[in-house]
């Protein structure tokens, strides 16, 4: 999940960035509204955290600019003022959720996950494809079929990010470079074959047919394979 964090306070920005990374987000952050506005328009983010109280460019203006493009990425608005008219204003400008400072990081995380799920068209409280359930808190997966219930499988950071992204968009074909953009942040060293390596690792864990290759186009997650995978395992 590529996440853009626009927050003018450098300390809070750093803190949030660190914790969000730990939670498996590929985070780009900036203190400047102008930069943030540009980054939001040019990079394919999955979610954006926007502070409304930016000194150089008001957050609401950035939001209005994005929505007029139109940019449909879900945006969670941070506000320190905590006044309701501001929240309504934010909502009218196109915010999907708001959080008043100070907040607990857990609450931010819950809201972010809910927004991501909502953006993917999922209404359930957790990410489930076929019989496979993704546990975002522990960054593990488990089968919810009868036989192997409760067995958690550990994932590495990149595996988790890749699997989450594909599980949130099942049947959707992504090229390797597209996947790279959503799994790594802007500053990461990106190698072209790195996705291939992780795809094959995931295939080893869940079965060959779970992630299919479409020649010349890319990869997609096959939900049917995740139901059948029970028999294979």
């Amino acid at each position, binding site marked *: 999940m590529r996440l853009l964090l626009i927050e003018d*306070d450098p300390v809070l920005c750093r803190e949030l960035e660190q914790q969000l990374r730990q939670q498996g987000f590929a985070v780009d952050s900036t203190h400047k509204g102008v930069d943030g506005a540009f980054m939001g328009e040019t990079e394919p983010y999955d979610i954006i955290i926007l502070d409304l109280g930016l000194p150089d460019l008001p957050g609401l203006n950035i939001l209005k600019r994005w929505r007029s493009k139109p940019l449909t990425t879900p945006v969670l608005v941070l506000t*320190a003022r905590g006044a*309701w008219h501001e929240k*309504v204003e934010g*909502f009218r400008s196109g915010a999907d959720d708001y959080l008043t400072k*100070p907040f607990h990081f857990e609450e931010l995380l819950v809201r972010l996950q809910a927004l991501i799920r909502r953006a993917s068209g999922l*209404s359930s409280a957790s990410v489930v494809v076929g019989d496979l359930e993704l546990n975002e808190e522990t960054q593990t997966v488990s089968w919810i079929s009868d036989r192997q219930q409760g067995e958690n499988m550990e994932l590495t950071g990149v595996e988790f990010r890749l699997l989450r992204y594909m599980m949130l968009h099942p049947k959707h074909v992504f090229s390797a470079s597209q996947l790279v953009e959503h799994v790594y942040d802007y500053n990461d060293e990106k190698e072209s074959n790195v996705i291939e390596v992780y795809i094959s690792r995931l295939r080893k864990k869940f079965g060959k047919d779970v992630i299919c290759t479409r020649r010349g186009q890319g990869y997609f997650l096959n939900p049917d394979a995740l139901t059948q995978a029970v028999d294979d395992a």
Partner: protein
Amino acid sequence: MTHKFKGGVQLYSLKKRLIISLAASLALFFLIQTLIIGNEVRALSEQNIHSRLEHDQKELLAALSWAPPAEPVLDPARIPGIYQRPFSGHYFQISIGGYQLRSRSLWDEQLLPVREKISDDIPGPAHQRLLMISQDFVILNHPAQIRIAEDVSGIRSNTASFQKSLLLFAAVGLMLLLILQGTIIRYGLAPLQRIRDQLRQLEKGEIEQVTTPAPSEIMPLVEEINQLLQLLRNRLMRSRHALGDLAHAMKTPIAIMGQIIERHPEPEDKALMKQQLQYVEQRIHGELARARTAGRTPGGYWSDPQRDIHDLTQMMMQIFPHIKFSLRLSDDLNIAADREDMLEVFGNLLENAGKWARSQVECSLIKKSHALMICIEDDGPGIDESQFKSLLLRGNRADESKPGHGLGLAIVHDIIVAYEGELELARSKTLQGLKVSMILPQP
């Protein structure tokens, strides 16, 4: 029109006062005038009669000839004819040396003997009222008295009817003048009425300034009102800006501290620090919310409550997708209250309801003639009745696990109190959860 002022003092109407005092002074003037003119007219005519009687008396004296012991005689050629016609209203009677000479007009009657030189309103023949003068002479060493009288009842009734018509004229004049004065006063006070209307509009929030032209006497008052309104508005805007900046400046560091505390290894210290930080945060949030409240200020107007509440509910449905928010709003809502204050009320209450409800939240906003009835209820667990009172005090929370419930309620309560309204907590009859009902007075 009299109005009870808030302190119980009776207010007077300028118009009523002017009309009453004008009517009283005009009526008094006309009454005195009528009396004086009436009396003057009567006195004038009596004076006329008087001098004529004196003149006739002298004639009589000249017509009298007496050579005792013979009877005195009057030369009939020298007596005016009017004294010869019976009951003509003109009479004389001469007493001399034991003889009585009476005018023919008296017929068998006698003139009353009187001592006064001039006597008014004495009974005469044929029910006439007479003005009589009597004068004593000494003729040939004998005392003589000539009494001469004239009927004045005609003049009396003439004067009375003259006075009556004068009074009638005065009454009509008074009425006409009062109508004229009323119109003049109404016209003169029209600017005041316009200002009064505008002040009422101002209270309802329909206008922001008193714009009607006013006479120079009260223009300073109007200007002062406008200036104060502007001052109030500017001050509110400035303080809201400053409070927003303060909130921003305080809450970001608190957020950072919260993040850092999370990394603290000692669980006991961590809990303690978190608690303290939360306390500081709540206090700041609550106090800033209170300070932001505009309250009942003239010109405060919520222009589009339907749109705002609708958007707010949309927002809530996005944040709490499993909960159904139903709205019931009066059609023509124009609310005399500050928009930011009202959004604070609805935002806090709807968010609380959303946090606690299982599946349903109902919000209604009904405009009555002089009040706004607001009701928000949910199907959550509700709150124990014993906690109702303490919840409305600042900063008390019903449940620490879900943030903001008690604080939000206390903020809402403070705002409602600032509008001289009422807030009541109860258990919802239909949904079984918490029911918050509020009454907001409207001008």
